[in-house]
């Protein structure tokens, strides 16, 4: 099992690359949510202002 993760001595480079991939993808996924919430807040505030 350990051999699988050892990557023939290149574990720092291989797993470092995988970590980079997941961290950047996760950051993109989280920013999607914040962009959506930001846009929704703007629509709600415009709606409230219009119907005051």
């Amino acid at each position, binding site marked *: 099992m350990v051999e*699988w993760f050892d*990557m*023939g*001595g*290149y574990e720092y*480079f*291989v797993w*470092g*690359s*995988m970590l*980079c*991939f997941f961290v*950047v*993808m996760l*950051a*993109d*996924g989280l*920013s*999607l949510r914040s*962009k*959506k919430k*930001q*846009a*929704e807040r*703007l*629509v*709600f505030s*415009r*709606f409230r202002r*219009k*119907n005051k």
Partner: protein
Amino acid sequence: MNKLVKLYHTLGSPPSFYRIAGYFLTPLLLLALGLTAYGLVDGLFFAPIDYQQKDAYRIIFVHVPSAWMSMFIYAMMGIAAIMAFVWRMKVAEAVMMASAPIGAAFTVITLVTGMLWGKPMWGTYWDWDARMTSELILLFLYIGVMAMYAAFDDDPRKAARLTALVAIIGLVNLPIIHYSVEWWSSIHQKSSVKLTGSTGIKDWDMLRPLLVMAFATKFYYGYSMLHRARSYLLHTESQKQWAQAALGLDTPKKQNKEQSNG
């Protein structure tokens, strides 16, 4: 009317695009996650060892699909930029601006994983050779596109028009990145996958996870781009009735009408 022309006009309308794009989000995300899980497990644990690079070559399963996506997304952004600049289509502006951060994310992955692959193979993390330098310029182009838009964001239509111009000019970098390893002498290896010729990966057990990851990243781009484009349209059309209706907000007029009907 020709069906294609009709589809073009339907997708060109922000409310229709917002609604139709919503149907694709969950399937695209599930495909992206499923294929990423399969592609990485297959590539990291089951693909055979490379006879020259040993296990270090497994970085290819994130590096190459990300590199392809960094250029593919710029091409998509460039096409959207041309449509936004010539026809001033709001949906094209949304696609263009939605693509930029995703393209930048894949370019960052390409550069960082390339550095991590370069150290054990070339003995250095970075070399100012044509491939690496042109990929770094691509990152600056993505950042430039986002910065240009942010600089004029009080007037989104003007911002999108100026940004489209920058994105169109940047298209010239794509053939430079692609052919850099052939035009100039480079420490970077030639293309890993070629449809013709004897170079590139030939072993199906190595090629399969690479192609699966290529599809996974394409599906992720589809998901993230549509998600961002929807948010962009809501943001820029926040005063329009369709945007408010899309979030379940009814105008007093409509509410009154419903009450009188009831």
